[in-house]
């Protein structure tokens, strides 16, 4: 895809690409794993791929409704965390995060769940706590993991999320310098979810962050990981995240994504899971923050009896724009996928959902179900939904349904006729719409704080705390 179009001049696109290329050349000698030949090749190929493609334009079918020109135009600081220790706001024993969302504490304070906290691209040992990890489970920050066991990455890194997949994945692969690696040995079972907390924008520079997250579950292992992105509300920055998930035979991975980027931030995240025979993967994602956010979630089912469920909730208020693209490749027979996504847009908010399910010719006995329901809270809000089913096998059970609606006037009247003020009634019905997605969170301990975060993003939701009970 060439640059240009969408109101952007060739010069702007070329200048932007040159800036990224120059930053890459400058930083390459010091990027994590720079002494590994294979990784150097991977990074260079990715940087070249980005140079060729530039940022996508709306002429690219996958980016039709999401114009990333504002990201291209920003001259984000690409210099990374640097070598000097971070000037530490709120560092150390206090256990609270600097600024940002008031809900952050809810996730971290309770229960002493294992957590890795990365502030502005740098591991914060004071806020992290990995003491409670069960045997066989390791959690490290990305640069350290690469240093300690490079061999582990060679067959995995950039193999699940291919850099050429999107310009953002290429950019992340070229620059990846922070992130987290969660590994579970065969048979390891972690009862408590591992929290990966990323706080962006604390530093004041308008940075582009390139965190890489790798989750690998050995045969029969069972783990849950929470990716929680927070940011300072005034800060302009870009989170460009790539998550690669490898689920071995009969293993089960639950992945929770909580996107609470700062109100002025850009958040782009690509996640892909590779499933072996009998493996299962559950993705649960909520997009709440950010000026513009985009999630790509891809699952390839190329071994029999693998199954995935993908659930998500996206909310866009004010002038927020949020986009979910899911893609499930049913390659092998006897696999199942279930998708359940809901979207809420108010103000001038804009939501996009694109759910592709591709059933390959040999994927008989496939079960693939997709539901996408959307709620518009205002006249100026907009949601585009596009289920995309491509079915090339005949002995399959597939279904899909997409709806866009408004709050039901009869329900609203019923609540008001019982004395409940209109704004509160609207809030109740809106949370009522989102509730079943929150209830799909398999971990009761996560349901409460995530439900509270969702409620916190609803217009007037702050007055409805008790609805969570």
């Amino acid at each position: 895809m060439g640059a240009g179009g969408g109101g952007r001049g060739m010069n702007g696109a070329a200048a932007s690409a040159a800036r990224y290329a120059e930053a890459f050349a400058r930083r390459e000698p010091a990027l994590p794993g720079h002494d590994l030949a294979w990784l150097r090749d991977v990074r260079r190929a990715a940087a070249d791929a980005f140079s060729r493609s530039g940022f996508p334009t709306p002429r690219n079918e996958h980016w039709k409704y999401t114009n990333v020109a504002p990201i291209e135009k920003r001259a984000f600081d690409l210099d990374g965390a640097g070598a000097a220790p971070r000037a530490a706001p709120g560092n150390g024993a206090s256990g609270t995060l600097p600024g940002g969302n008031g809900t952050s504490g809810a996730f971290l304070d309770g229960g002493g769940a294992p957590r890795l906290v990365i502030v502005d691209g740098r591991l914060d040992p004071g806020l992290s706590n990995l003491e409670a990890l069960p045997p066989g489970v390791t959690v490290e920050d990305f640069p350290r993991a690469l240093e300690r066991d490079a061999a582990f990455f060679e067959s995995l890194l950039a193999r699940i999320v291919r850099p050429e997949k999107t310009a953002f994945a290429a950019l992340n692969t070229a620059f990846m310098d922070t992130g987290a690696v969660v590994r579970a040995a065969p048979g390891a079972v972690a009862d408590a979810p591992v929290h990966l907390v990323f706080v962006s924008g604390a530093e004041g520079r308008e940075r582009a962050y390139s965190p890489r997250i790798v989750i690998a579950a050995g045969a029969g292992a069972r783990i849950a990981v929470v990716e929680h992105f927070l940011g300072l509300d005034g800060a302009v920055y870009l989170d460009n995240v790539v998550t690669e998930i490898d689920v071995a035979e009969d293993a089960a991975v639950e992945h929770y994504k909580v996107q609470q980027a700062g109100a002025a931030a850009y958040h782009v995240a690509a996640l892909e899971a590779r499933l072996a025979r009998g493996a299962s993967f559950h993705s649960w994602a909520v997009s709440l923050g950010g000026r513009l956010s985009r999630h790509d979630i891809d699952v390839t089912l190329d071994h029999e009896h693998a199954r995935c469920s993908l659930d998500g909730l996206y909310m866009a208020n004010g002038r927020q724009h949020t986009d979910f693209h899911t893609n499930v490749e049913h390659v092998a027979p006897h696999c199942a996928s279930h998708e359940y996504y809901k979207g809420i847009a108010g103000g001038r908010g804009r939501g996009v959902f694109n759910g592709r399910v591709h059933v390959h010719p040999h994927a008989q006995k496939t079960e693939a179900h997709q539901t996408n329901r959307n709620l518009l809270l205002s006249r100026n809000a907009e949601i585009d939904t596009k289920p995309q089913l491509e079915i090339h096998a005949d002995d399959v059970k597939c279904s899909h349904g997409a709806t866009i609606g408004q709050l039901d006037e009869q329900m609203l009247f019923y609540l008001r006729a019982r004395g409940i003020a209109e704004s509160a009634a609207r809030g109740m019905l809106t949370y009522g719409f989102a509730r079943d997605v929150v209830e799909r969170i398999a971990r009761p301990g996560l349901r409460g704080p995530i439900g509270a975060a969702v409620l916190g993003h609803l217009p007037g939701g702050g007055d409805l705390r008790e609805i969570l009970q």
Partner: protein
Amino acid sequence: MLEIRDLRVAVDGKDILTGLDLRVAPGEVHAIMGPNGSGKSTLAHVLAGRDGYEVTGGEILFEGRPLLDLAPEERACAGLFLAFQYPVEIPGVNNTYFLKAAVNAIRKHRGEPELDAMDFLALVREKLAVLHMDESLLKRGVNVGFSGGEKKRNEIFQLAIMEPRLAILDETDSGLDIDALKDVAKGVNALRSPERAIILVTHYQRLLDHIVPDRVHVLSGGRIATSGGQDLALELESRGYEWVREAAAGA
């Protein structure tokens, strides 16, 4: 308590009520009967403040204040309650949460302290018992998966909890078996008091055996065509509504 003067209401440009007068004093129970489509629910909805009805004339005073200027929630807080003919299901909004929010909204309006969890639970248990309702219904979404009878009981359960000044029951009796009808009547009769008034909208005389009204009105041709006592309901039962219509047309 309630005074309706020359009320005229149109829906989609069609005149439904064409000059309805009604006075209800505290302590009274009035029954409004009438054939299907005569405008009984229209009247009930206009009283409760539902959108979609065009009031083209007349006025309504509730405790001396003009009712039509108030939002539905303000009417509820002022003490008006409508038991719906067709209660809507509200998935995702828990019944207990909803009830507590409603009770406390009204208490707050009255300047009373909010009920705490214990007092609320005690109140709820007491009223559930009167209506023979299972506590498990409270854990569901509002009316979600309730049978027709359970929905009607739930309306009267809410009525019992809210203790309004004026209750309007829109065909609460239709579709109920005799046991449910008795429970509903018990719930309503328990509320009868010198300060409260009740309007029973019904199609059948049956309910009036259990909740004996002070006045019976027949709604026909967009207005109260005739009024009387309990014996009027019995006469309607034997002679049908056609008789009223003819009498009204002939008058």
